[in-house]
């Protein structure tokens, strides 16, 4: 096979993916899977929370308060993943100009913000009995606070610009530059202060892991929160697409009147 032929084939192979960026096709597909997705989310989240809350032993040093883990860790994971997803969607928008991508990034931001807030709030509730303080300037806590500020700035920029395409462009640039600075802040904060926060609850390194009895419902919990995030982003993206359509219809009507 000649070289140009091969590149064309590679392009065709990936083209099926981009077809899903067509708003009509996206609406059809998301409408189809949304009830199933929502049901699955409810099932997985309920499993993890009920298992975690009622059927795990209380930890020796922690007491019952350890159970907030099943909300704290998954929400924190989703809070970070949501930002990653926004950056990827922003890059896709800047390169391929698919509107669904830009709208999905916009739809993910408030969800990510709330997840960050949940992680901070449950962390504070947990920290009060464990560390004796609601808040400490620990690197992990501080990084999350900074992440929260990044989310606020991102959403404020979306809200401030009237033209939707300009807003999508500028917020995408902000998301990309912001991520570089967010990572930089993470290292700066690590350098700046030593922490109270324990190490990673989950990692591939077996030594660091929490015990298996906590581990399994926690992993299910993270899966549940991820599904929850995907469901919410689907719903919100659908709303955004409908909003665009209504806007376009209104414009057309006004043009017809004039």
């Amino acid at each position: 096979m000649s070289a140009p032929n091969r590149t064309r084939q590679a392009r065709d192979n990936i083209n099926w993916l981009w077809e899903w960026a067509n708003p009509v096709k996206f609406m059809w597909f998301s409408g189809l899977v949304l009830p199933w997705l929502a049901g699955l989310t409810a099932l997985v989240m309920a499993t993890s929370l009920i298992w975690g809350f009622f059927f795990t032993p209380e930890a020796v040093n922690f007491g019952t308060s350890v159970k907030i883990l099943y909300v704290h860790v998954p929400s924190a994971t989703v809070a970070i993943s949501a930002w990653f997803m926004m950056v990827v969607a922003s890059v896709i928008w800047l390169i391929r100009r698919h509107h669904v991508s830009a709208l999905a990034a916009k739809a993910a931001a408030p969800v990510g913000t709330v997840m960050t807030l949940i992680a901070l709030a449950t962390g504070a509730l947990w920290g009060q009995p464990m560390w004796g303080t609601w808040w400490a300037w620990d690197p992990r806590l501080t990084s999350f606070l900074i992440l929260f500020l990044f989310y606020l700035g991102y959403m404020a920029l979306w809200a401030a610009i009237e033209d939707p395409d300009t807003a999508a462009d500028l917020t995408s640039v902000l998301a990309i530059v912001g991520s570089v600075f967010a990572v930089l802040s993470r290292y700066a904060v690590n350098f700046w202060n030593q922490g109270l926060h324990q190490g990673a609850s989950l990692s591939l390194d077996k030594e660091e892991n929490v015990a298996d009895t906590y581990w399994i419902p926690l992993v299910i919990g993270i899966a549940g929160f991820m599904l929850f995030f995907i469901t919410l982003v689907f719903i919100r993206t659908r709303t955004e697409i409908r909003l665009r359509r209504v806007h376009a219809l209104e414009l057309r009507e006004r043009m017809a009147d004039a």
Partner: protein
Amino acid sequence: MIALLARDIRLALRAGGGFGLGLAFFLIVVTLVPFGVGPESDILTRIAPGILWIGALLACLLSLDRIFQLDFEDGSLDLLATAPIPMEGIVAVKALAHWITTGLPLVIAAPLLGVLMNLAQPGHGWIFVTLLIGTPALSMIGAFGAALTVGLKRGGLLLSLLVLPLYMPTLIFGAEAATRAIDGFDNTTPLMMLAGITLASVALLPFAAAAALRINLR
């Protein structure tokens, strides 16, 4: 480009309030702090490097929206965009002009204001050095924020919300470098990181800012 630099500096000096405002604001912030925390000299000594850094950062923030806003409103930014110099160059020159008219005076004034804050003896030099290394990054990051918000009618508040989180690493390493030096520790690492942030910002952010400006001028 040199002509543009000269023009921007001249405008900042002559068009009222831009130049001295940052310095006056810096002075006021540093004056207010003792009223807030009390005049005990040992407390002031301990927080002096941080306060001076935060004061310089806020004073820098104050004049950011002037970088592009006036030129955007009177249309000269459109002319510059069609000029035969690349947009990245325009952004870099405008950030440089902002640094010369705002950052540099702050750097020079900071050791003097350190006297008000009862700064420890080797601190004056170190505040000067760390600010000298760090403030170009503040101007460049600010120019990026200003480029993002240039099309907005009341972008000032939004600009602060966008730029302040981006300032965090610079502030952490800058203040840390100064504090460590004053406490007699080795401060090579934060100093290198600070220099790294400045160099990377100056090298990379003009591209992001130029992209944002092009979107806004579209």
